[in-house]
């Protein structure tokens, strides 16, 4: 009986902590949402209250002056194409590293992981020169390609981890049935590894969607900019239009949230699987 009570108290503490953190997670979002209806001065003098009027002028500004709709389209193009290529090629490489027999596989694996250890800020200038030489500056490729290259380490880290946990027997059976390596990959391994692939795709989509640095530097034409860059358009030389920026921020985070809410089940599964055997 005694145990039951302590268990109950423990349960109570757990719930308090969970609810507290829930509030902490949601409140800032709620605040951003409210702030998006305020004027710049209200932001400072009525920071935590309701806006005086539910005027959508900030959103209108964000769309008209800030060009948010156009940026949105560019963001989708860049994020989707980078994720698709990075995940397909990364998964293929993972397969060879995790399942196939060759001497260099460990070395190649470690070389890829090196990419997780470099800050992207250090690569900007050499990349800029490369893209200039290839004539790709100010095209979406200049953002997509590095995102692909830098997406590999994470993809390979997680997908390899998952694939290594799949029993050898499955493939052996397939090979005896006359499958080629490609068929083994497509028909045996990929269906099992699906959830880890989805996880990687979602995490990368979110990263690329939120990335500010690459589009900021490699794109010059405002027609080609992405959403987060649009946010900085509200920062003028001597002052910042915070409420306009917040309205744009709201429009930026909504897609991330939708993607996450739609796919969170798969993300969980993928994490389970991918993380289990690293």
């Amino acid at each position, binding site marked *: 009986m005694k145990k039951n009570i302590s*268990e109950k108290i423990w*349960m109570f503490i*757990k719930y308090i*902590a*969970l609810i507290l953190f*829930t509030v902490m*997670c*949601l409140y*800032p979002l709620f*605040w951003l949402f409210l702030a998006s209806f305020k004027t710049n001065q209200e932001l400072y003098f009525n*920071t*935590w209250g309701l806006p005086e009027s539910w005027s959508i002028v900030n959103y209108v500004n964000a769309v008209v002056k800030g060009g948010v709709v156009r940026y949105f389209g560019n963001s989708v193009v860049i994020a989707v194409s980078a994720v698709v290529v990075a995940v397909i*090629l990364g998964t*293929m*490489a993972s*397969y060879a590293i995790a*399942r*196939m*027999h*060759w001497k260099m596989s460990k070395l190649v694996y470690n070389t*890829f992981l*090196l*990419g*997780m*250890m*470099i*800050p992207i*800020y*250090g690569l900007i200038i*050499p990349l800029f020169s*490369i893209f200039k030489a290839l004539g790709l500056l100010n095209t979406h490729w200049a953002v997509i*390609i590095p995102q692909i*290259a*830098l997406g*590999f380490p994470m993809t390979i880290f997680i997908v390899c*981890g998952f694939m290594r946990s799949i029993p050898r027997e499955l493939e052996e059976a397939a*090979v005896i049935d006359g*499958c*080629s*390596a490609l068929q083994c*990959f497509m028909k045996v391994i990929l269906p099992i590894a699906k959830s880890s692939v989805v996880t990687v795709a979602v995490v990368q989509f*979110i990263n690329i*969607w939120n990335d*500010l640095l690459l589009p900021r530097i490699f794109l010059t034409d405002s027609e080609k900019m992405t959403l*987060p860059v649009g946010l900085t358009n509200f920062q003028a030389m001597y002052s910042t239009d*915070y409420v306009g*920026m917040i309205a744009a*921020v709201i429009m*930026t*985070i909504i897609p*991330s*949230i939708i993607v*996450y809410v739609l796919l*969170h089940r798969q993300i969980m599964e993928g*994490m*389970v*699987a991918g*993380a289990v*055997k*690293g």
Partner: protein
Amino acid sequence: MNKVMGNKRSIAFFVLPALIIYAVFALFPIAYNIYMSLFNTDLMAKKQFVGLGNYIGLLKDGTFVHAFRNNIFMVIGSLIAHMPLAMFFANAIFKKIKGAAFFQTVFFLPSVICGVAVGLTWTFIYNGNYGLLNAFLKMIGLGSLQQVWLANKKLAMFCIIVVIMWQYVGYHMVIQLAAMRNIDSAYYEAAQIDGASGWKQFTNITFPLIKPILKIDAVLIITGSLKYYDLVAVMTSGGPNHATEVMSTYMYYQAFNILKYGYASAIGVILMILCMLSVALSNRVFKESDE
């Protein structure tokens, strides 16, 4: 079997596309950086070979040493704050409580949001005059603790680490939770029969079995903390007076604001070496659970 799975051509087919892209757009820039770190250069007219001069200069540079210390503080802070907290939440949700799916979704949410938005929101929370934190302290009778949080050189770094924690605890929780869900429920059933308490179940079953994931998680936290840039740049730009400078913000400043490109490259190289060292270290720490 080996004939199929060891086929050179298939291996090349699977690996080469990724490897080539990676080599050109990631490895080549890394090599270029290492090379440039040996020069005193602004990449324009000035290019003077200085050997290890930049590295020696960094050791003598008080700001860099401070930034370095901040990064180490961040790594340690994130490790001891992220992991147990994430583990606590993961364990709480794992025990099939009401609303588990809801909590899980909500906790992950902050890591989905871009740094600009997070930084902006928390700048307002920390604000000295009408910030939520000060208002809260006043409400619970701790008004004497009120202050301008991000302007306090002793507390600013700590404040930023709290925000990073806020943003990523849910992320690490999901990773750990995933591992917990993967544990065979038979273990717990057996423990139940033996009458093991919740705490005993955690120390004897859950913790040992998720250890491999904790290793991965540690690697993610360490490399993430060493490379960290976003929130520092948005919230304090490394200020007040370099108090929150970290290696990546310092590197960015050196390269783009004052054109000391060689010097900045050296910072990048040191950052990379540190990452590798700490990954090796965490591999060693978690070694026994590996094999």
